[in-house]
């Protein structure tokens, strides 16, 4: 039962005000993170299941609203579904991808482009918004658990295909070899 760990996935929601003059450059930077086939910097941050950066320019104003509700700044929304605890994840993110994080949150009000790891972690924590309801289809599985089990499943599918014509004896030997304890 390797995959059942004590890890519980948690949501992180961070909203940071973007400095007005920096929005276009921030958008360009975020949209270019995968240029030339580069992997996302988030792939280096262990425990990240899914994450996104979203630039929120405004709230949609519905005409049935009695009053409009405008944003003073554009906001950068960062959400991540992570192996908890969230505080440790934020510190890990700041440590592992500090250069990229400076390019991103360094364009936000209240965060210097030369922010230190510890300052950035404090800044991100201060910009967090509490999640009301969180749904996970597999709340007890860490990223490593998921990848391990997906690997087992892939190998099992290939094994079943490969051993269709083998005798029970050969299948048993091959199975024990393919899936070591």
């Amino acid at each position, binding site marked *: 039962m*390797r*995959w*059942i760990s004590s890890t519980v*996935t948690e*949501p992180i*929601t961070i*909203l*940071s*005000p973007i400095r007005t003059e920096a929005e276009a450059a921030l*958008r360009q930077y*975020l*949209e270019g*993170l995968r240029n030339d086939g580069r992997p*996302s910097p988030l792939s280096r941050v262990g425990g*990240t*299941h*899914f*994450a*996104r*950066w*979203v*630039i*929120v*320019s*405004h*709230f*949609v*104003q*519905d*005409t049935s*609203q009695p009053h*409009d*509700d*405008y*944003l*003073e700044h554009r906001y950068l929304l960062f*959400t991540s579904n992570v192996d908890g605890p969230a505080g440790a994840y934020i510190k890990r993110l700041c440590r592992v991808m500090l250069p990229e994080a400076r390019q991103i949150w360094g364009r936000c*009000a*209240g965060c210097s482009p030369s922010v230190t790891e510890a300052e950035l972690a404090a800044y991100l924590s201060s910009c967090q*918004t509490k*999640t009301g309801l*969180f*749904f*996970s*289809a*597999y709340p007890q599985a860490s*990223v490593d*658990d*998921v*990848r391990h*089990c*997906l690997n087992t*499943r892939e190998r*099992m*599918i290939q094994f079943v295909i490969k051993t269709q014509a083998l005798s*029970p004896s050969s*299948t048993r030997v091959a*199975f*024990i070899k393919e899936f070591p*304890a």
Partner: protein
Amino acid sequence: MNATNPEITKVDASTARAGTVPAGPPDQRKVPTLTGANQSDGNLASTTTGTQTRNLDGVAIAITVFSTVRWWGPYWLKILFAYLSAAPKSLTTLRDLSFIHFARWTIVRDLPRGDHEKTRVKLKYPHLLFESNFNGGWEEYIDAFSYVLTPGMAAFWGSSYGFPGALPTGRFKSYIHANEVSASHYYSAYPDYTTTMVVSALELDPKVAAFRARAVSMSDEQFAAEWSAFLTASSRNL
């Protein structure tokens, strides 16, 4: 908040749903289209399933929606969230849909100002942030939500201004399109796998480990019989 800020898309629920130009400053008008009236740089490609490519990583799709909530909405939503959190079986339908990895609903009442004192500015209205990480097509996702979770949709979005009801789905899709914000960067740790594949793999792994432990001491005849039974039992996970 600043009442003179022109950074706004004004959407009349009825006209947006009819596909006409919503009100608002001319340079900010956005027309609901197949890919939505959502916030982007206006130059995003979209797939045939109606998903903008920056909301994709492999087969994983991101959806991010903000809706403006009536004053009483947070009170109702907090009760709803507390009930659903305390009775996780109530989310079984969501789990049974089997195409959602993670989803969240967050009430945003204030935002950081970005000053050194780390103060927050209170919004005139509360806003409901919904985000989901799923697989399949955008249209199919909203359809499934609308048809399978019709009462649930009203429970979550009934307090939001402009919510047209979950059915018929065309109006609800227009509503979500109008309130959706495109991601600038989206990441999945296992982009090639659907929710069903992940859940199946998590179920299969301990079964394989348990069978392997028993297989070591089986005779060939016993293995032949149990292997067949194991494959039958595990077929839904493969």
